[in-house]
């Protein structure tokens, strides 16, 4: 057992670090800074600029085949790049979905012409992509979607509504799954397309979240025309195609944001409770120990995954534990951090509150972490079925034509 890079890995790490030293600022202090990720114009421009520099330096598509402009390196190299990146302030949150999910789907299911036209500008950051899968009726039942596409000559005409679409308001293109046949079983009547987000008939509305930010959108489709040439995969094969995308999502979904163990540990050292530092309290110490065990366990589990990657093995759905464990931990840490302040704990004036009200803000965004990208319940199902081999839930919708499935009032 060791934590050492192989010679190739060490060389790549050095190259990545040099890139960041040249193109980004090293993080100082801890926490706080990593929070502000508003998707405003200034941040978008900065992100596009940084993406272009990554592309020019050969870091924008590390694991992709050379044929698509990638470097063809094994996945461990991407992990190493991300590790190095973690020490720097870099723009984030604009390209992950496009490059992590949409473009890989396009590369696999699109034509060579599609790839030639769309991959290079996506990699350079000139064009941004979003993913239009979830719908209000669906929730965890992703395939229960009802947005329709009807064939009309060489086009398809889309009507319906998508939701939880990150970045729809600034994206150039999107991939979308729609129902093309409601008379067959749920998973069999779906088809995938890509489309121009500026197409007539698309309306984007931002969703305000509990935390007050708006990371997601609703997207409404009224007679939106998409040429059949923009279909990805066969008609009726949309579910299978979208599994490519979702598999990539699962790898991308990582641990919850700060505050984590380090933040509450520092808070407990700073905050005074009844005349003593909070960390002197044995009840607090036991909680800290429990969180450390989880935080460290998740970090080390990632090292086990990296080991599999660096041996060119494919890591399994074990990674599902990361989000499941860390989202709940985040909510507990946020709540406990506030409790340290007693009657003052509910204050949210950044200038008045320890750690600039990080814990208060986290209380508000943590519930979303337990939902987005697979709820706690879905993740437990994935672990139970795919890792532990337990039988699937009984299905009420199995083998029924989609339009015969009970749907309730909302």
């Amino acid at each position: 057992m060791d934590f050492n890079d192989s010679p190739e890995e060490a060389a790549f790490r050095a190259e990545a670090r040099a890139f960041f030293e040249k193109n980004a600022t090293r993080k100082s202090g801890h926490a706080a800074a990593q929070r502000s990720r508003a998707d405003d114009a200034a941040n978008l421009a900065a992100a596009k600029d940084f993406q272009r520099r990554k592309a020019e330096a050969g870091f924008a598509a590390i694991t992709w085949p050379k044929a698509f402009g990638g470097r063809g390196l094994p996945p461990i190299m991407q992990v190493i790049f991300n590790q190095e990146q973690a020490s720097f302030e870099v723009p984030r949150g604009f390209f992950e979905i496009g490059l992590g999910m949409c473009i890989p789907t396009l590369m696999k299911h699109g034509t060579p012409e599609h790839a030639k036209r769309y991959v290079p500008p996506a990699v350079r950051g000139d064009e941004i992509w979003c993913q239009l899968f979830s719908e209000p009726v669906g929730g965890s039942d992703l395939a229960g979607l009802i947005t329709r596409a009807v064939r009309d000559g060489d086009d398809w005409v889309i009507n319906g509504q998508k939701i939880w679409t990150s970045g729809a308001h600034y994206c150039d293109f999107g991939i979308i799954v729609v129902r093309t046949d409601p008379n067959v079983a749920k998973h069999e009547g779906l088809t995938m397309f890509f489309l121009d987000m500026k197409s007539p008939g698309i309306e984007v509305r931002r969703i305000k979240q509990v935390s007050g930010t708006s990371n997601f959108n609703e997207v409404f489709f009224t007679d939106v025309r998409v040429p059949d040439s923009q279909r990805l995969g066969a008609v009726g094969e949309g579910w299978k195609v979208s599994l490519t995308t979702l598999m990539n999502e699962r790898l991308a979904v990582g641990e919850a944001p700060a505050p984590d163990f380090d933040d509450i540990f520092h808070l407990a050292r700073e905050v005074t409770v009844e005349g003593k530092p909070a960390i002197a309290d044995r009840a607090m110490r036991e909680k800290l120990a429990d969180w450390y065990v989880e935080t460290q366990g998740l970090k080390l589990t990632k090292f086990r995954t990296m080991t599999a990657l660096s041996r060119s093995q494919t890591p399994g759905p074990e990674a599902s534990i990361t989000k499941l464990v860390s989202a709940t931990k985040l909510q507990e840490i946020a709540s406990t951090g506030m409790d340290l302040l007693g009657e003052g704990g509910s204050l949210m004036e950044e200038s008045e509150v320890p750690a600039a009200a990080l814990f208060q803000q986290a209380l508000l965004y943590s519930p979303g972490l337990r939902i987005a990208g697979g709820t706690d319940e879905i993740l437990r199902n994935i672990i139970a079925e795919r890792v532990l081999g337990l039988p699937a839930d009984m299905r009420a919708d199995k083998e029924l034509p989609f339009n015969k499935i009970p749907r309730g009032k909302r």
Partner: protein
Amino acid sequence: MNFDFSDDEKRLKEEAHGFLNDRCPPKAVRRVLEGELPFDRDLWRGVAELGWTGAAIPEAYGGVGLGHVGLCALAEELGAALAPIPFASSIYLAAEALLLAGTEAQKSRWLPKLATGQLIGTIAVAEGAEARSGKPLATSAEGGRLSGTKLPVADGAYADIAIVAARTAKSPLALYVVELNQPEIDRAPVKTIDPSRGHARLTFRGAKAEPLGSEADGEAILKRLYDRAAILVGFEQVGGASVALDMACNYARERYAFGRPIGSQQAVKHKLADVYCAVELARSNAYWGAWALGADAPELPLAAATARVAGSRAFYVASKENIQVHGGMGFTWEGDCHLYYRRAKHLALMLGAAPEWKEKLVNEIERRNAA
């Protein structure tokens, strides 16, 4: 054995439920949450007209003299409705403080106006976010003049009087009644996790202040006041928790996924069964508090701590899992789930957080065992 509200109290509770259903739907809470109003003045007038503000204030001081068990019944309904009014500040804290420690003159002067809702009272103890630090109070009183800063003060921006805790030459904590409309007091609203309840920073620059109770007794009065308020807040928590649980159950019955109501999945059913257990334990413990409050029983401090710990947990758990059951919709600003989640955490912190009350609880059991 009669461990329940009386028929009269139940009738009062039902009336309150109907009134609040009508006058305080979630969209009324939202008007305060979103900053349209500092608090719901119409609702405040309404509850005052119904006599709720005077419910536990003796008739001699202009109240209804209904007693504290009746006030508990009202508190449960106010908690269920997330009423965006200064009820807790003015009634559970300011009026109760005057009842506990006021001179005859003070009671006669302030209670009738608090009883009718004409005046709004509050309490100002914390001095900044680090309210549990146990550091000596920076706010000081000398010669009837008060100086220092209090933060956060619930309803501080629009309250008329405040009970203020201050250090004096002789006492680490003495209480004062302070009229807030003085030029020597600055007030500024501050942001908290629950904007449906207004909070402010109060800066006193030699403001006039009148002692409440003896200087030496300040800490004892405050402890007793908080114990009593904890029971009333405990009922608000039980009320809020029950509504959050109901919302989750309703949604789980109506929302379909995979061709069946999500509430037919054990992951949802069992989660909500556990929430139910937490809520019922909190309710039973709150009832104990109501009894102790009504009977002024020696068990009051223990019952208060028990009700508070149970209530804080129940409302927090119920409101947090209500969001989870609602999925993405539960996390939108437009959905009402977050109103309960915010209020749950606010109430869990307002008289001091769970660790303080757990400590009080065990202290109290030790004291009773030693006796």
